[in-house]
């Protein structure tokens, strides 16, 4: 008809390419071959075409040129390809990989794929699958990722794949919705040795940044968050930290141990099995951080944050063993404290407060979700260096008011299991104040907002007895020193991090010892976080850390049997970790030591050799 006539008419203005006539001939040949196969005849030329496509020899230029011409001709004859009669050539095309070819062949192949996808609905799924497969590079690429030519090839391939996906979604508007389930399906399983999943996630996030992300961004974040969580849970953190369950809450945090040159008590047996996963997780986190940063630069972080929070709520909020994945939220908030930082806290508080709303049936299973939300809120308010004190004070006030309301309506004695939410709320308030007491008390208005706290803590429900002893002890100490109020009863805790009562309110998930934003344990991730993170060593409590030894004698709260341990552990870090100690291992008395300890802490690296700053 009209257009095909132009192919046979050399005088037409139709310009097929540089070498007009031979390309036209090729197209005609291809069409004839396809037609004859469709009619049921066997065709030598068709067999030749199938063979050319299956050849995989990058170095042969002649073959490359032949393949190039064939692909171009096929692009021009897409309408003549029949899904039933031309299976061999179609499977050949869908089996090809851009990784194996030179850029000019890549271009022709990509054009063919786009034409196939756009021209007939029957090929759309195959084309999309073929393109997504490139997100998992072949082993020879993974093994040589540091080589320049491999990096160049990766750039050539992935830029064309993304370009093709965008062009297809332009021509076939429903393509993105078909693409997303395929992306989920092809996500590589957790593999200890390969970094493949990191590259795949890199590409997923790049898609999120494109127009496809407008449609499917939420689902992409879900996929990424789920993978982060799964990897996080696979790693045996307890082994790496060598059972930190007895470590003092406010003991000097592990990074100070690194300053000493002490060896971190790492289970070296686990290095081999967990080592690769730790690296993968670290790289994945950094990839995600980079993506969030670029979103922020383009002004999209606010929009992205909603999707990010949804996936956090779905996967991380009710997972109590993840140690690292939650830092994605922390990082996003640190990039944009006024919007995202505020939103995160408010959403968590809303989840906690939604426990008040009337429900048609008594849904017990949600209580751990609410407790988890308030634990996250507490850890976030305590550790977020970028959060202004006024914001922390506002959140605290709402928590205090909520607990005060609860006290007013409740006339019960201590019953940890029945009043879990109340105790977790109180513990949250106390935990935040351990970190922020001084700055809050400095402002009279904020100080006055904390007045109801005394009556809450003195209520029959006795939160001081039930909440985590280490938190209570530190809080009371600071409250006394800061003049907030003085507790008349003495609380003897005796080396306890936790007690039976706290275990009771914490439940089987141990939400009483759940502090999700405790320092991040991965090297590269932590370097992104530490600038915005409040370490315990950075906190200036209301009592003077210098006067520790004198204070202990007349303190009404007896925390520790023996304050100073003469057994400076040369190799006995276990003992130090087991000791419940408010005083830091190294006194601030010595000026030199104080300066060293006040420095930005070094990274924690779960390996046998300590990392220097």
């Amino acid at each position, binding site marked *: *008809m009209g*257009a095909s006539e132009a192919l046979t008419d050399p005088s037409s203005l139709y310009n097929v390419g540089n070498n007009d006539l031979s390309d036209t001939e090729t197209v005609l040949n291809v069409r004839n071959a396809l037609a004859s196969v469709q009619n049921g005849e066997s065709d030598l030329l068709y067999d030749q075409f199938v063979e050319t496509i299956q050849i995989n020899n990058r170095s042969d230029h002649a073959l490359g040129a032949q393949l190039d011409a064939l692909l171009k001709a096929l692009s021009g004859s897409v309408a003549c390809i029949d899904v039933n009669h031309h299976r061999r050539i179609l499977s050949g095309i869908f089996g090809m990989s851009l990784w194996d070819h030179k850029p000019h062949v890549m271009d022709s192949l990509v054009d063919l794929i786009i034409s196939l996808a*756009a021209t007939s609905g*029957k090929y759309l799924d195959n084309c999309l699958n073929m393109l997504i497969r490139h997100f998992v590079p072949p082993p020879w690429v993974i093994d040589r990722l540091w080589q320049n030519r491999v990096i160049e090839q990766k750039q050539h391939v992935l830029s064309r794949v993304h370009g093709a996906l965008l062009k297809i979604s332009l*021509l076939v*508007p*429903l393509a993105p919705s078909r693409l997303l389930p395929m992306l989920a399906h092809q996500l590589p399983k957790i593999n200890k040795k390969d970094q493949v999943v990191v590259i795949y996630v890199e590409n997923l996030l790049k898609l999120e940044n494109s127009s496809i992300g407008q449609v499917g961004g939420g689902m992409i974040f879900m996929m990424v968050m789920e993978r982060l969580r799964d990897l996080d849970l696979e790693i045996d953190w307890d082994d790496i930290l060598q059972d930190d369950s007895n470590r003092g809450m406010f003991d000097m945090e592990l990074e100070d141990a690194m300053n000493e040159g002490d060896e971190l008590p790492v289970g070296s047996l686990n290095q081999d099995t967990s080592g690769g996963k730790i690296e993968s997780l670290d790289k994945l986190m950094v990839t995600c951080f980079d993506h969030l940063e670029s979103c922020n630069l383009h002004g999209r972080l606010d929009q992205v944050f909603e999707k990010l929070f949804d996936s956090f709520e779905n996967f991380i909020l009710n997972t109590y063993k993840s140690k690292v994945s939650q830092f994605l939220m922390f990082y996003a908030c640190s990039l944009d404290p006024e919007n995202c930082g505020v939103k995160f806290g408010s959403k968590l508080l809303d989840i906690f407060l939604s426990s008040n709303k009337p429900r048609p049936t008594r849904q017990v299973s949600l209580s751990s979700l609410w407790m988890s939300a308030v634990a996250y809120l507490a850890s976030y308010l305590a550790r977020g260096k970028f959060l202004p004190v006024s914001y922390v004070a506002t959140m605290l006030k709402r928590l205090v008011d909520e607990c005060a309301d609860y006290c007013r309506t409740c006339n019960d004695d201590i019953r940890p299991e029945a009043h879990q939410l109340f105790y977790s709320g109180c513990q949250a308030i106390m935990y935040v104040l351990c970190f922020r007491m001084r700055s809050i008390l400095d402002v009279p208005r904020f100080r006055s907002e904390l007045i109801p706290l005394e009556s809450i803590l003195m209520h029959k429900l006795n939160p001081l007895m039930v909440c985590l002893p280490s938190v209570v002890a530190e809080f009371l100490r600071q409250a006394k020193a800061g003049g907030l109020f003085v507790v008349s009863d003495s609380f003897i805790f005796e080396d306890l991090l936790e007690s039976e009562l706290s275990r009771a309110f914490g439940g089987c998930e141990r939400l009483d010892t759940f502090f999700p934003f405790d320092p991040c344990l991965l090297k590269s991730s932590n370097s992104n976080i530490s600038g915005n993170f409040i370490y315990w060593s950075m906190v200036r409590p209301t009592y003077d850390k210098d006067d520790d030894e004198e204070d202990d004698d007349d303190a009404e709260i007896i925390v520790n049997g023996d304050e100073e341990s003469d057994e400076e552990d040369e190799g006995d870090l276990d003992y130090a970790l087991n000791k419940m100690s408010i005083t830091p291992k190294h006194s601030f008395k010595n000026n030199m030591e104080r300066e060293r300890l006040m420095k930005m802490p070094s990274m924690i690296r779960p390996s046998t050799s300590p990392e220097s700053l």
Partner: protein
Amino acid sequence: MEGLKLTNAELLVYIHPSKSGNKLKAICRELSSLLFQYDEIFDGVLLAFDVTVKSKGAKILAGLNPYFGVKVEASLLLFNPKPNSLVEGKIVKISPETIHVIVLGFSAAVVTDIDIREEFKYRMRNGEDCFVSSSHKRHVLKVGTMLRLQVESFDEEVMHIAGSLLPANTGCVKWLEKQSEEALHMDRLVLICTLFFT
């Protein structure tokens, strides 16, 4: 444009008990899950709907999951382009072998060179691909033109239309409408002249 129809339907929507707090929202959610998909029962792709809840009571299903069924009256906008009907869409890409069109913003339509009538010739004008009619120089098809095409087939799974520009009443919508207006105008003129001379 043919292929679009508005129908009324009486539906029974089953809702999970946990959603009993907000029935309308649950019903809308159920129906929304059918949007932009071909449904055999409706015989078309559901594009939009409007619901009103008919009855106050609902029947609870017996069995493990006590879903309850709410009677609903809905008006549905359906899209089902039958073969040989006409549809209109915007041209998004032109190549010597194909014209790619998007219909109603969601359906991809393609006209291949075999289905383009002889009148149209492929040209490259000012760096732009276009098809120009050899008999009417002003009848040009290029990217951005609204095109009227005849449906050859409709792939329900991917919402893909295979179209044809063979019939004479297909082509650029603006040009065709201008033509028909002029034709109408001519007809009137001829009628007046005939009346005048008789």
